[in-house]
């Protein structure tokens, strides 16, 4: 069903995965990279035209010249909307992609109709400890990311089996993430002072056992956003849309179609 193509956004070529038909829904991937048509996206594609771009600096996409902050990437996605001729869209962002979606909504709230954040980065909460992913190796990061032991074991196998080409892509992805999120660590201090501008319904979905950006960060988003509701997924780690596909897809669809949170 889905298709993959390269598209140029003001001269920067990125890979775009697309599937389904209907209103535009944009999925923004997290720090481990995109380029994969997740089962979660397939579920959304039953009712929406799902766009899953691979961010500049990741996977098959070019680097974005002069990019050195999440805001640069947010402005890139406004150009992305213009290139596709979309006035606006629904956005779902996971982790780093969640932070990105919030930045887009803060800059241009009129171009975001609905927003779902999955275990999003973007805020620093006093007293909430977050691990320094940049000090850890891939396997240690994986252990913090995935809650379910079986799925952790599978992913560890995939990691060990990665070939040189895949390792190179992963190294570039990491460098892009460091470029955006080294310091301040995965957040922008001023973002919390812009959240009041996002006057649109927001669904916050968080894994109960997210050890990368703990649910306390979700609670802070719920407190600071004018119209947000936090939903905790039990027995789940940092990637609810991958660890708990059915439950998260169902919640997302009910919110997107019926406004139920």
């Amino acid at each position, binding site marked *: 069903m889905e298709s993959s193509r390269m598209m140029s956004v003001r001269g920067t070529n990125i890979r775009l995965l697309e599937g389904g038909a209907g209103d535009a829904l944009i999925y923004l991937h997290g720090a481990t990279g995109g380029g994969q048509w997740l089962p979660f996206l397939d579920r959304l594609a039953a009712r929406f035209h799902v766009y899953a771009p691979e961010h500049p600096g990741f996977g098959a996409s070019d680097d974005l010249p002069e990019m050195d902050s999440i805001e640069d990437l947010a402005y890139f996605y406004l150009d992305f909307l213009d290139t596709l001729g979309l006035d606006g869209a629904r956005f779902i962002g996971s982790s780093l992609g969640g932070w990105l979606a919030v930045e887009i909504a803060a800059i241009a709230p009129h171009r975001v109709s609905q927003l779902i954040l999955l275990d999003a980065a973007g805020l620093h909460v006093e007293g909430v400890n977050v691990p320094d992913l940049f*000090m850890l190796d891939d396997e240690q990061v994986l252990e913090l990311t995935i809650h379910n032991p079986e799925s952790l074991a599978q992913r560890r196998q995939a990691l060990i089996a990665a070939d040189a080409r895949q390792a190179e892509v992963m190294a570039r992805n990491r*460098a*892009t993430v460091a470029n955006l999120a080294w310091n301040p660590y995965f957040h922008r201090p001023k973002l919390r002072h812009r959240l009041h501008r996002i006057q649109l319904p927001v669904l916050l979905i968080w894994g109960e056992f997210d050890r990368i950006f703990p649910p306390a960060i979700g609670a802070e988003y719920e407190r600071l956003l004018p119209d947000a509701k936090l939903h905790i997924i039990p027995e789940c780690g940092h990637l609810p849309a991958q660890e708990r596909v059915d439950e998260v897809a169902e919640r997302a669809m009910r919110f997107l179609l019926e406004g139920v949170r």
Partner: protein
Amino acid sequence: MKFFFQHLMPWPHVPRNNPHPQAWVTYPRKYYDPTLGADIYEDYLSQYEYAERLGFDGVCVNEHHQTAYGNMPSPNIMAAVLAVRTKRVKIAILGNAIPLRHAPQRIAEELAMLDLLSRGRIICGFVRGIGPEYHSFSMNPTQSRERFREAHDLIVRAWLEPEPFEFYGKHYKFRYVNPWPRPLQQPHPPIWIPSQGSVETIDWVAEKRYTYLQTYSSIESVRRVFNEFRTAAQRHGYEANPHQLGWALPIYLSDTEERAYEEARGPMEYLFNEVFRMPPSVFFPPGYLTPRSMSRVLANKKGLGTGYLSFEELIDKGYAMVGTPSSVRERLAAYQKEFGFGNLLAMLQFGTLAHHLALRNIELFGKEVIPYLRELGESNDAERDSNRSVAQRR
């Protein structure tokens, strides 16, 4: 050939089987004993003085942070001390980690001060700082290369130009660059660049006609990198002279081969495996190396810094040299003939090596090695080439 006495000023009391994953970044400073530390500084400084007495041409200091590996977070402070405690030797600062500074003018100022205080004996090294420094200062490693180039350009321009100027870079923007005082050596002290052998750096150093230093490398890598430097120099329209090439390595001498091995083994393993070793994510933070350099540097440094290297392996591959004065000088002479370098940076205290053994090592090197090798790489041609390259840079 010119001989430099190199030192890291290591903290020698990290316990074997240190339970911490590294002696860097987060290795708790409670393990630093200041009373002991003051004595250790004094021992190390007296080793520098001894090296001057024994005929070395220069002494070296360097910069590392938050680590037991080397206790010179401010190399310029040590250089100031050495400017007073020595009279003749060059003082090579190898180097200041310029991208870590928020105002690189401070380097132009401090180096000029040092050059004046030492009456023109300063050699100015610029480095990016290795991976862990970027963790220690939460400095974005993906910007390291750009910041290095900009900071370098700012400093050198400040030394070359007589009038205040505006510097408008991506990372550094200053309305009035006008550092006082000016260095005694005009237009500026010689510039040396220590490197791990990345393609970009080799080419850049050759283009600038600076001196290139290869540190901590196998013989195989030293050979390849020096050849690449010469090729790069040709590409930029000149023949590299021996004084543009420097090789830095730990060396240990004793009366017999057996004794040398026995005395060096523990301290050398401590250096490479206890205090240097760190997790790969710390040694090579994301974006610190370009993808092109990554594979090369990793190949050059196989296991170095991130894995265990046995003493035998360190010796066999040429990361370090151990033996009697005559065997070591034979090896050095052979390598000098083959590689054509004009600067040898001998690290004669390393790891836990005791003060009295370090002094004897310095003495043996000064008396039994330097006099035999001094003429190598010192042809009139080399001097002429050296002068020419300085003249062209001006």
